[in-house]
């Protein structure tokens, strides 16, 4: 993993169109601003992993368990 040290309001650029700025540092919390093209989806990792897991569960659901609705 590439490791870079940044100060408040400094940023990094990824590829051609993505920029990540450090907006605020407060104790253990860091606020980041992300500029990216519209076709690049940006997600909080833990949410993204939960959605992957839910999709997997949806694919493991069985027709015989579907409730009458």
């Amino acid at each position: 993993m590439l490791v870079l040290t940044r100060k408040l309001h400094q940023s990094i650029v990824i590829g051609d169109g993505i920029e990540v700025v450090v907006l605020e540092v407060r104790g253990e919390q860091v606020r980041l601003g992300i500029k990216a093209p519209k076709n690049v989806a940006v997600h909080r990792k833990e949410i993204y992993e939960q959605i992957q897991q839910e999709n997997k569960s949806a694919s493991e659901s069985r027709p015989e368990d579907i409730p009458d609705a």
Partner: protein
Amino acid sequence: MKLTGTRFGEIDFGPTDVLFFKEGIIGFPLLQEFILLSHKDDSPFRWLQSVQEPGIAFLCVIPQHFVPDYNPELTHAVVESLKIEEDTERFVLTTASIPKGEPTKMTLNLAAPILVNARGRIALQFVLEDEAYTVKHRVFPEAKVKEGVAA
């Protein structure tokens, strides 16, 4: 065309039956082509059956059947990506998860709906920024004490 080896047996379909997910399903980026099957007539449940991997089908629902006021915000980026205009026929699905043998514990992923452009046959699963909706929305209230055990 015929799709064999699915959990639902052989499926006959035509090119206009295929829904195209340019970005795949989250966690399954390579699965882009699906056929939407109804569970039963008049049922809110659907199966997103993969064309590329016949063994894979995702259980989905029309979410408003269970959550009538569900109203996910469609951002400009989502609308643009699916080429949706004012009069474009569209609908929303969410995935549904049912633990094996426990239908009352069904949950819906309201945080990552699937928007379908019905006319263009293109679709996208996207993540809501509104944190009011959870990935595990419980549909049926949790059972309290089993009958006969209480008192």
